[in-house]
C-alpha cells in the first residue's frame, strides 16, 4: 500500500476540519474541527517521517499533541466562561472586538 494514501487521508481530514471551522457556529464543534486539523497534520508529519526514514516528523507530532492538549484546556475554559456570561456557545455572538 502506497504511503500516499496516508497523505490523501490527511488532506481529507484537514479539509473536513477547515470546512467545519468555517461553517459551524457552535464553539464546541469548531473546537473539535480544530483538533481534527491538528491531527490531520500529525498524520502527515508521521507519514513524511516514514517516507524520509528519520524520526524528525514523529518528534514534531509529539510536540503538536502536547500543544494541542494545552490548547484544549485553555480553549474549553474560555468557551465555558463565554457560555456562562452570554448563555450561548455560538462563535458569531462573541463579536464585540471589532472596528
Amino acid at each position: 500500500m502506497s504511503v500516499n494514501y496516508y497523505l490523501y487521508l490527511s488532506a481529507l481530514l484537514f479539509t473536513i476540519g477547515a470546512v467545519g471551522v468555517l461553517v459551524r457556529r457552535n464553539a464546541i464543534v469548531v473546537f473539535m474541527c480544530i483538533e481534527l486539523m491538528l491531527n490531520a497534520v500529525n498524520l502527515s508529519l508521521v507519514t513524511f517521517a516514514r517516507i524520509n526514514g528519520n524520526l524528525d516528523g514523529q518528534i514534531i507530532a509529539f510536540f503538536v499533541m502536547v500543544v494541542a492538549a494545552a490548547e484544549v484546556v485553555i480553549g474549553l475554559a474560555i468557551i465555558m466562561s463565554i457560555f456562562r456570561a452570554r448563555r450561548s456557545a455560538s462563535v458569531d455572538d462573541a463579536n464585540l472586538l471589532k472596528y
Partner: protein
Amino acid sequence: MTLQAAAGYAAATGTFKLTFLLVLLPALSAAVLLLGGKRTNPWGHLLGCAAPIAAFVIGLVELLAITGRDGGQSRQLDQHLFSWVPVAGFHVNANLLLDPLSLVFVLLITGVGSLIHIYSIGYMEHDPDRRRFFGQLNLFIAAMLLLVLADNYLLLYVGWEGVGLASYLLIGFWSYKPSAAVAAKKAFLVNRVGDLGLSLAIMLMFATFGTVSFTGVFAGAHSPAAHGGTLTAIGLLLLLGACGKSAQAPLQSWLLDAMEGPTPVSALIHAATMVTAGVYLVARSGAIFNASPDARLLVQIVGATTLVMGAIIGCAYDDIKKVLAASTMSQIGYMMLAVGIGPGVYAIGILHLLTHGFFKANMFLGAGSVMHAMNDEVNMRRYGGLRKVMPWTFVTFGFGYLAIIGMFPFAGFFSKDKIIEAALDKGGASGYLLGSIALAGAALTAFYMTRLMIMTFFGQRRWARDAHPHESPRVMLVPMVLLAAGSLLAGFLLILGGSLQHFLTPSVGTSVEVGAHTIAPLILSLLTLAVALGGAAAAWLLVGRKPVPVEQPLNVSKLTWAARRSLYGDALNETVFMRPGQYLARALVFFDGRGVDGAVNGLAALVGGSSARARRSQTGFARSYALSMLAGAVAVTAALLLVRVG
C-alpha cells in the same frame, strides 16, 4: 548741528529754533488726551484749545522774525531735528523747513484751527466723547503742520498719511451711525488711491534723482540732464496724490460723504486745511511742474473740471453741509486751476486758498450753528426765516456768502478775480476756455450760495414741529465773528501792494505781472461782479420768489437729477471699480475654495474615506478571520508550489 541744514536753505537759529514746537505741542496734547483716559475729561477741551493757540503764537513770532530778515538774508530756514534714515546711498533727515509758503500755511492751520477748537467747546458740549474729539483734532493739527513743515517728500508723506488718519477718525467720530462709519471708510479708501500716487512719485524721485529732499529734487528738475518724460510722470503722480487729498475729479466722491463728521471737523479738515494739501503739494513742487507743461495742462484740466462739477452739484443738493462741501470742491478747483497755470501764478492759488480758508470755515461754523439750533437738521427745506431768530449767525454767514460769490470788497473778490484774470492771460484758445469756465463757475457759485441763503435764512418758516431755534452760545459766536472779519478783510490785506505775492517769492518764484492783459483788469472785475450778480439774481428768480416746497420736487430736469446724485460719481466708481473688484474677489474666493482648498481637502477626504471603508473588514466574527487566514495559507502554498513546480 547747524551744518546739517539742507543745502540751499539757511540753518535755523535763534527764534527759528522754536519751529519744532509747532509740531510737538499739538502732538503732545493729542497724546495726553488720547492716552490719558477719563482723568483728562474735566480739562481736556482746554488743553486741546491751548495747543493750537500756543502754536499760533509761535507762528506769529516767527512771522515777525522772518519778515525782519530782508536783503541778503535767506527767508528759508531749515531746522535739523535728527537723522531719520541713515542708510548708505539713501539718507533722509527729519528736517523742518520754515519758509514763507510753509509759514503761511502754519498761520492758516493754527489760526483757523484755534478758532474752530474754541467753537467746538460749545458745539460738542453735550457729547460724552468731547475729550477724544479734541485729542483727534490736535492729532490732525500736528500731522498737518508736519505736512507743511517737512523739508523732504518722505517726511511730508508722514504728515500726509497722518492727516488722512485724523480725517478718517473724525469723519467716523460718531461711528455708531452706520452712515458715518461707511463715510469714514470711503474717505480712507479713496484717499488711498491718491496716496498710492504720491508714494509712487516719491519712489520715482528717488530712482531718478537719488534723493527725496526738496532741494535735491528741485535741483534735479532744473538740471538739463533731467528727462522730460520722467518729470511729467512725477508731476502726474503728484497730481494723483493731490486729487485724492483735495477731492478733485476723478477722486472727488468722498468729500460729500465726509460731511457725516461733526461740523467743526468739516470746517477745519474738509474746508479750510486738509483738502487744500493737494494745492500745497503742487505749489511746493513748482519746480517739477515748471519743467513739465504736460503735467501742468492736466492740473488745469482737473481744476477746471472739478470747478464746474462741484458748482453743478452744489446747485442741486438740499443738505446744507453737502452744498458747502460741493462748493469746497469747486473752490479747490479754482486753486488747482491757478497753481496749474504755473510759474508766476502759484501765489494767486495760495491767496485763494487762504481767503477760502477763512470764508468757508466761517460758513461751515455758521451751518453748524444752524444745525445746533435745529436739532441737527441738515435739510434746507426744513429751514427758512432763520435770520430773525439767529441774527449773529445770519450776519456772519452773510459775510462768508458775500466773500465766496466774490463781492467787492470781500476776500473772495480779490482772489477769485485774480484767478480768472490769470486763466485768461494764459493766452490762446486754452486761456479763453479756462477763463470762461472760471467765469461760468463764478456765476454758478453765486447761484447755489444765494439759493442756500434764501432757503436757510429767508422765506417762510418750514421748521419741524419740535424745532425751537435759538442763537448759539457766545463760545461759538466769537470764532464765527472773527472768521467773518477774516472773510471781509483777508483778501484786501493780503493783496495790498502785492504783499502776499512778494512774501511768497522765495518759495514759489516771482509772480509775473503780465504787461498786456487779455481783458483789462478793471473791465474783467466788473464783468465778474456782473456775472456773480446775474447768478444771484437767477437764484432769486428761481428759488426766492415762490415758497420753497418742503419735499424735494420730482419733476425736474435730467441735469438736476444727475446733480442730485453728485453727477453719478459714485455710480461711476461702483461700475468701473467696485463691481469688477467684487467679481474678481469672488472669482478668487471660488478658485481658492474649490481649487486650492478643494485639492487639499479632497486628498484628506480620500484617505479618510478609504480608511473608514477598510476598517469595516474588522467584523469581530472569528470565522471570517479564520477564512482570511485560510486564504492566506492557500495563497502561500500555491506560491510555493508554483515556484517549485514552475
